[in-house]
């Protein structure tokens, strides 16, 4: 056995905790397909993890069920599994696709005058986290180096040769800044001073263009007055970026309260 490649069977726990990724996951799933004992053990572990989940139950937001019912009414259901599918239960659902930004690449030299400002904001967040982590858990501080490297998707946009910065005023208060790479068809969005919303509402980004409007993600809660960065990918010619106040949980179409529009 090669170092770093654990005996597949010992990975049953990590698998049931969804703690395997990439090659580890693929290798274990191949093993699982012919290991009855593993399948039995994992199904017991799933009962355990379900208890961990239900122990965290919290009052759901009002309207969650209502929105799910409305969406279900227009969502086609899958046919029953074939024998082959059933043998793979619990099958993994296809990974959710998100606006994930461009491929990571080594961040080059910062090319433009405004880049240091944004880069500084990203770095400041990382530093703050490092300090907090250091205080909260001394053993965890070293991992920040690893996590800093994960800002690459954002750095790749900030340092793209064709990166352009645009900004706009949000009609309800605050300013939004975007950095966009047309060639990579990606933008990074950040905002400052957005008005806090009641718990029934959320900020949602939209890409609005001739080919139709696409939801581009919910904005996270602000931290120290700053919101983002959020990456939106798959930009198309003629798109506008819109920011709207939507019911918590998102909307199908941008609502009537679009509070920022930036032509891209």
């Amino acid at each position, binding site marked *: 056995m090669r170092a770093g490649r654990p005996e597949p069977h010992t990975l049953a726990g990590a698998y049931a905790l969804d703690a395997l990724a990439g090659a580890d996951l693929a290798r274990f799933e191949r093993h699982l397909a012919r290991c009855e004992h593993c399948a039995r053990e994992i199904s017991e572990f799933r009962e355990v993890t379900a208890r961990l989940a239900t122990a965290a*139950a919290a009052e759901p937001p009002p309207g969650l069920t209502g929105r799910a019912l409305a969406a279900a*009414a227009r969502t086609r259901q899958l046919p029953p599994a074939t024998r082959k599918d059933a043998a793979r239960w619990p099958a993994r659902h296809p990974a959710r696709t998100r606006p994930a930004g461009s491929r990571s690449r080594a961040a080059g030299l910062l090319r433009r005058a405004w880049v240091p400002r944004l880069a500084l904001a990203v770095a400041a967040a990382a530093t703050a986290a490092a300090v907090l982590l250091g205080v909260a858990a001394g053993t965890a501080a070293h991992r920040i180096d690893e996590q800093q490297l994960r800002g690459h998707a954002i750095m790749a946009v900030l340092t793209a040769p064709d990166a352009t910065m645009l900004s706009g005023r949000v009609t309800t208060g605050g300013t939004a800044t975007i950095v966009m790479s047309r060639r990579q068809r990606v933008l990074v969005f950040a905002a400052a001073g957005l008005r806090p919303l009641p718990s029934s509402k959320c900020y949602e980004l939209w890409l609005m263009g001739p080919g139709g409007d696409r939801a581009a993600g919910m904005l996270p809660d602000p931290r120290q007055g700053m919101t983002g960065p959020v990456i939106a990918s798959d930009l198309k010619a003629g798109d506008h970026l819109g920011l709207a106040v939507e019911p918590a949980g998102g909307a199908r179409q941008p609502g009537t309260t679009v509070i920022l529009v930036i032509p891209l």
Partner: protein
Amino acid sequence: MGISDGHLWSPRCPACPDAPGIDLAVLLGQVARGDQDAFEAVCRQIAAPVFGAIRRMVRDRCQSEEVAQEVLIDVWRSASRFDAGRGSAMAWVMMIAHRRAVDRVRSEQRSAERELRAASAMIPYDDVAETVEASLDRERVRRCLGSLTELQRQAVTLAYYQGYTYRQVAGLLGVAAGTVNTRMRDGLIRLRDCLEVGR
């Protein structure tokens, strides 16, 4: 078959007094045939645990709601794939919910935004949800988690409640990856016996 008694899985939260109701596995069978009333009853039973578990991992309110809604739609779409012979209905639902939350957390981990969230998730570190009301079920889970060794508990909770891979957990704790995966498995075996969810 595994545990599928509705009452054993009731989240017993004040927000969902009618949660136990009809057996979840039976309802899923009706949902698989396109029964929207059954789906509404399913949502009443699973909304609180699904949302709570996602909120605990994803942290952010708006994004938690977005993921929770995706999970409910997944349950509607794939109800025909639930097989009661292979485990309880709640275990199946929570598997879907946890994977969705993990996908979201891992994609966030790729961005700098994750930094602050990781920090805020570490500070009020506690084995089981902080703000929700105490319940018998929750107390039992807490007690059983308390019966694990320190490393077993950290390995299980960092993976399950924070969405880290076992290799990340190993890096985080400064322990060999092989040690982490055996502790995860040992920890789950101990929890299984303590919670009496053996089949």
